């Protein structure tokens, strides 16, 4: 390369960079706010102004986009059409359902948010980066909108939900109205215990399972007594650990003990006791040997018919749910083994948030309000068209030949579950059971607090890797706990756990003080 030509390509490169810079500066602007987003879609920008005061019958037509995780359904267009009829009458809006497969969800939604796609409503959840997206400006605060257009939500939703889903005193998502409490327990094969004559009424806590598993292992060698692909008794819902947001960031409270000190769960006596028990079960061969590496999810193992019991987050009817999915209806039962608690992980576990790119947040809130109050719209979205995708008898619905063409299984994401019809395979009093289950749960002291990991994100990143390296092997009992735990804790220390705990404690103290 001669000197002359090098000079040329440098200048060429510079020139192209300058061209590029001017173009990207424009694009930077156009991507920067909802005003410009609206100018991209002139037919919609007309609807943005002055709408807050409009009455429903004066509303201009608007197409709402709803992005949520799930498999696209064959009959989506048919259901959309039916929804449009109802929605046009009620709020003069139409809807565009945009389900995204779970496998693509993280990639796609991160890009859509970062890429400023014009979307009205996103599904969001505390375990799916809600706090992070809020701090990055992806969602708008909803409190005023709820007051104005979400009266139905306020009337039907337990105030604990909205209270518990707040970030810095504001709501950025409307929680789904469903079971509020959480507890841990097991689901087991009732037909097997009956056959072997095991009395399950004596089983109250994890260590009582020892005797049961011993019999099952001996008499039914074809079944894995306790199948898991990760967590055993130290799953956060079983140990009642409140991680104050994302459960992959260390530092937790014991939410059933009203504590206010943030500490690594690995230091707690409960964790270490459960660990010993898990190891004991593992050594005795009750737990599947490949627990730390298997990619067969518990439900798949149930489907394959090789499971006696699994650890599950509990709610009424969990056993029936598993059984019907596995094709063994009526052959399972469940035992709740921990106290019921309420924490942010439940209140903010499933929400609908309004995107900061929405061109019509008011209308979006009206739709969310309808999902919480309008039985017809709610069930249409969740189960499809009556007489086509299901047949109805009272509140009980039965599948038809076309059920498979529309069964998104996303009822837990939209509005109020208490409006849902009940499948004929489920308990007819399902929603009464849910209400009863919500009674008497202990609220975590940190309800409504979500940790912001931004100040310590380097440490959190390093810790995420350490946890994935050790957690499964240690918690399934696959390795010797004394040595394994020692290494695990040391690795956590090296990755800066102390700094993260201190930051969590500081933010939590501020939260308590402001309460």
């Amino acid at each position, binding site marked *: *390369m001669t000197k002359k030509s090098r000079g040329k390509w440098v*200048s*060429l490169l510079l*020139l*192209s*960079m*300058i*061209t*590029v*810079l001017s*173009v*990207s*500066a424009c*694009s*930077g*602007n156009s*991507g*920067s*706010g909802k005003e410009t987003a609206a100018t991209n879609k002139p037919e919609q920008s007309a609807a943005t102004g002055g709408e807050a005061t409009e009455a429903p019958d004066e509303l201009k037509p608007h197409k709402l986009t709803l992005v949520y995780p799930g498999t696209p359904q064959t009959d989506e267009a048919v259901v959309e059409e039916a929804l449009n009829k109802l929605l046009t009458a009620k709020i003069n809006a139409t809807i565009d359902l945009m389900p995204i497969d779970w496998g693509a969800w*993280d990639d796609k939604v*991160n890009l859509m*948010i*970062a890429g*400023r796609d014009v979307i009205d409503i996103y599904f969001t959840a505390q375990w799916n*980066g809600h706090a*992070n*997206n809020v701090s*990055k*400006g*992806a969602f708008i605060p909803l409190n005023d909108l709820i007051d104005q257009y979400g009266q139905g939500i306020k009337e039907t939703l337990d105030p604990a939900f909205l209270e518990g889903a707040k970030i810095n005193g504001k709501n950025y998502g409307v929680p789904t109205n469903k079971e509020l409490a959480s507890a841990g327990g097991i689901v087991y094969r009732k037909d097997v215990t009956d056959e072997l004559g095991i009395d399950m009424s004596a089983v109250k806590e994890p260590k009582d399972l020892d005797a049961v598993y011993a019999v099952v292992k001996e008499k039914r060698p074809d079944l894995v007594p306790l199948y898991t692909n990760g967590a055993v008794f130290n799953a956060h819902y079983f140990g009642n650990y409140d991680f104050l947001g*994302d459960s*992959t*960031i260390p530092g937790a409270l014991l939410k059933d003990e009203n504590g206010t000190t943030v500490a690594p769960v690995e230091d707690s006596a409960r964790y270490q006791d459960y660990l010993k028990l898990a190891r004991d079960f593992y050594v005795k061969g009750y737990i599947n*040997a*490949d627990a*730390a*590496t298997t990619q067969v999810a518990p439900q798949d193992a149930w489907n394959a018919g090789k499971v006696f019991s699994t650890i599950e987050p509990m709610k009424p009817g969990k056993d029936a749910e598993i059984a019907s999915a596995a094709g063994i209806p009526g052959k399972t039962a469940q035992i709740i083994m921990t106290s019921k608690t309420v924490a942010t992980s439940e209140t903010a576990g499933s929400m609908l948030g309004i995107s*900061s790119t929405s061109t019509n947040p008011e209308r979006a809130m009206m739709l969310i309000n309808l999902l919480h109050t309008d039985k017809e719209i709610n069930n249409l979205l969740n189960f499809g068209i009556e007489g086509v995708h299901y047949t109805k008898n009272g509140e009980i619905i039965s599948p038809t030949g076309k059920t498979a063409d529309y069964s998104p299984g996303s009822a837990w994401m939209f509005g109020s579950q208490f409006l849902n019809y009940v499948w004929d395979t489920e308990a007819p009093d399902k929603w009464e059971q849910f209400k009863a289950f919500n009674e008497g749960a202990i609220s975590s002291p940190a309800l409504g607090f979500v940790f912001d*990991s*931004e100040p310590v*994100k*380097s*440490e*959190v*990143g*390093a*810790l*995420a*890797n*350490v946890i*994935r*390296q*050790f957690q*499964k*092997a240690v918690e399934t009992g*696959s*390795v010797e706990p004394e040595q394994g735990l020692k290494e695990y804790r040391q690795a956590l220390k*090296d*990755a*800066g756990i102390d700094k993260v705990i201190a930051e969590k404690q500081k933010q939590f103290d501020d939260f308590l003080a402001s309460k």
Partner: protein
Amino acid sequence: MDILYGKFQKSVFRKYWMFYLMMLPGIAILVVNNYIPMFGILIAFKNINYTDGILGSPWTGLRNFEYLFKTKDAWIITRNTLLYNGSFIVLNLIVPLAFALMLNEMRSRFLAKLHQTIMFLPYFLSMVVVSYLAFAFMSDEHGFLNTTLLPMLGLDEVKWYFTKEVWPYVLPLVNTWKWVGYYTVIYMAAIIGIDEEYYEAATIDGASKWKQMTRITIPLITPVIVIMTLLQIGRIFNADFGLFFQVPRESGVLFPVTNVIDTYVYRTFLTVGDIGLSSAAGLLQSVVGFTLVFLSNWIVRRINKDNALF
């Protein structure tokens, strides 16, 4: 183009205006697809806020890079990335080259073609599928190795996904298996392109096969070897995510020998969800690769100017 016009001598432009016109679609696509997004490297130095946009978000200096250097994992992931990629570069050179040389000696062109076609098959399989296949061989319970092969040889079962020691061999094996067909085609093509007269002359001089190989074949295809190797060196800091993430099945016990920069960054992203962190890692990888390519090209130039890539 009108901005560029003034910069060039008018005569050149007048003479070659058709060339610029021909290149225009290509330039436009490169600018849109590659050059404009390069300004995204700003994200690596920003604390991104979507509503403020990339330009409007606050600067954070080098904070997004910190997590890559902070812990003792930093050393492990760097070491793993470099050692594996180093071994892949060597294997992807030696094995396909040897295969190409041997295929070239096959008298039956039909068989050579058949083998070459079959060798290409693994290239079509995604890493997810490859991970299933590897699992079919190495699973504790049903794996072909544990149920059939090892007992046949009178050896004890191995818990493959818990045994760190075997993975530094398993991963290069899988990688070579997947890519050898691709690289063999390229080297094979280069070898076949060599003028027959060289070999005829060599045979008359009584040169042995080995001599022909080391004195004629390899020197003549060196430019291709240099291109292929330099391109891989440019990506020495970028690990094949699929290989290191899917094939070891996220077995934590194996992390000390399977965690590489890309998997580390991904796991961080899953928890922290900050694109600044991944951008920082990507930038670092590019810069290191870029520097290494120029460095190695410079070395190649010093040895033999004709073989250098640019």
